[in-house]
């Protein structure tokens, strides 16, 4: 673990350092481009920080073991890319259903399928939200710098612990492999899951306003029933009643929906008076912001909006923007976030700059801005 200070490191290393600072006690993973550096770094640094590192036989085993380790009371994490993230979907849903905190890093690459392993893409945005079966909500972050790889990894751990939910760091090969200045702060705010008080005996239901029940550890004599089947507050399986399914699934969704103002995060510049707002996220948002800056320097009335948390999506803010101005969505994918933006922005106001394989230049996005404005 690096001492506090400023470093010139790549995003994946910053992510690993964030995990160390957040208190990660267990990491399991499987090699995959362009995410491997997270694992390579943690294999060396996590044991020194007192955490357990294991390389598993595949990505399914990786996510399974971090869920198992989380129930022993440890903050746990895995990192992968698209092909591995696809394999993890069933067990990601298990973590949602059993309310198991864990962090899944997906350093996205160009898909579908094997695609181009070293090239960036953001085609997994919808998968992060809808990839596992059944109704659920998730929390997913979109970093656009090595610094945010560090910061958002810590926040991913914190929100995961707070809401007892798997959280996804939706990075891409652009930010994962980008090398730039990262400040490792001295003081980092960390959150631990709420353990049960003496009188709390239900670990899978609650009437609390935040909808989050307390979570005990294995080995405490609670005779825990942890199951991916529909269950009652004490963990007892109930695979047939309307009430059990309705109460559980509604609460799982409400955990995110009702706490969304605390979870949502975005940045915006000059949105209020803009004729055109460029919406972008991930590594491509860097040249996109540059293009917006150039447009304003050239007298064009253009704003910039970037979701830092993709899920839950800032849908109300997106709707406000779409009602008041034209929108240009700039993303490293044809279908990444597009449907979500289409849902909020009237089609006559929505313009697209979609790019595959590599980051565009500032001028390429600027030309598209000019085309739309004129």
């Amino acid at each position, binding site marked *: 673990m690096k001492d506090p200070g400023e470093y010139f490191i790549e995003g994946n290393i910053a992510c690993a350092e964030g995990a160390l600072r957040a*208190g*990660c*006690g*267990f990491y*399991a993973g499987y090699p995959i481009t362009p995410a491997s550096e997270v694992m390579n770094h943690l294999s060396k640094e996590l*044991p*020194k*920080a*007192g*955490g*357990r*590192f*294991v390389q*598993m*036989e*595949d990505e*399914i*085993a990786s996510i*399974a*073991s*971090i*869920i*198992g*380790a*989380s*129930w*022993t*009371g*440890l903050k*746990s994490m895995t990192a992968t890319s698209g092909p591995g993230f696809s394999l993890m979907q*069933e*067990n990601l849903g*298990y973590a949602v259903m059993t309310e198991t905190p864990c962090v899944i890093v997906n350093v996205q690459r160009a898909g579908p399928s094997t695609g181009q392993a070293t090239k960036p893409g953001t085609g997994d945005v919808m998968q992060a939200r809808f990839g596992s079966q059944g109704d659920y909500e998730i929390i997913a972050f979109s970093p656009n710098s090595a610094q945010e790889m560090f910061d958002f990894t810590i926040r991913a751990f914190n929100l995961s612990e707070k809401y007892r939910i798997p959280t996804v760091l939706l990075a891409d090969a652009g930010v994962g492999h980008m090398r730039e200045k990262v400040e490792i702060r001295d003081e980092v705010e960390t959150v631990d899951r709420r353990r049960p008080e003496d009188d709390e005996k239900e670990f899978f239901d609650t009437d609390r306003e935040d909808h989050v029940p307390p979570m005990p*550890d*294995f*080995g*405490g*004599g*609670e*005779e*825990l*029933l*942890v*199951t*991916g*089947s529909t269950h009652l507050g004490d*963990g*007892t*399986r109930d695979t047939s009643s309307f009430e059990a399914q309705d109460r559980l699934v509604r609460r799982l969704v409400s955990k995110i929906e009702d706490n969304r103002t605390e979870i949502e995060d975005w940045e915006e510049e000059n949105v209020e008076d803009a004729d055109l707002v460029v919406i972008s996220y991930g590594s491509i948002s860097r040249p996109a912001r540059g293009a917006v800056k150039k447009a304003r320097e050239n007298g064009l009335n253009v704003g910039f909006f970037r979701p830092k948390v993709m899920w839950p999506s800032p849908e109300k803010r997106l709707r406000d923007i779409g009602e008041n101005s034209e929108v240009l969505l700039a993303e490293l994918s044809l279908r990444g976030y597009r449907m979500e933006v289409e849902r909020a922005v009237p089609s006559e106001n929505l313009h697209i700059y979609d790019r595959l394989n590599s980051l565009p230049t500032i001028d390429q996005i600027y030309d598209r801005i000019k085309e739309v404005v004129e």
Partner: protein
Amino acid sequence: MIKAKEIKEKYIRRHPSPFCPGCGGGMVLNSMSRAVEESEVSKDDIVAVSGIGCAAWIPSPHWRVDTLHTTHGRAIAYATGVKIGNKDLEVMVVSGDGDCAGIGGNHLLHGARNNIDLNVLMINNGLYAMTGGQVAPTTQHDEETLTTPYGNPSSSFEAAEVVKAAGAAHVARWTTYHMKDLIKEVKKAIDTTGFSFIEVLTQCPTRKGKKEEMNGLEMLEWYKENTSKNENTDKIFVGTLSEVDRPELTEEIYKQIEEVGGDLR
């Protein structure tokens, strides 16, 4: 020996039983409970991990310990995280033959290779019972099942032999006919540091018995007649297949943390 009533009160959770009449699942539950009772292990330190299928229901919800009832085939992978997460826990895996040797086969191989300190009971009834009796990796050649109406064109997977070859510390095979031997073997598994694998041939009167016109009791009789504790017969061998001393994954990981000066999180 502890009385049945005491075992029931101490180890069995009150819950309507999902098992069919004559099923071997309850016998496995009984043998696990008695093995723990006879061991030095505290019930509070046991975590029972299972996947999907009839066998997965043996510990969850029935066994009165911490239980983790996971996805199909992944019990050993989940259990690996539990054991490495807290080495002081005694981790049991109860998995059917399809769960363990079919969809979960890769985790079984690597659990054995890692020689991680788990106690895996593979409850082998030779088919996918919960879904209606389809062919499994453990079904014998030519055997008729729901999905091999003309006989099994494939051949059975000898899981215990494979796990032995992959390097597990302790490998054994018993049947539900051999209750006393099974209890001793589960206790040996608990006492073993390393990957313990016990294949338990278990009767399924509903899916298999009906087809072969045998009830649960007759199936137990079949196990008696067709197994032998002597390796040099044509019968199915029951007993300990292998005991080896190899490095165990969890101990090695914790040793490394200590060696590099990590203060355990």
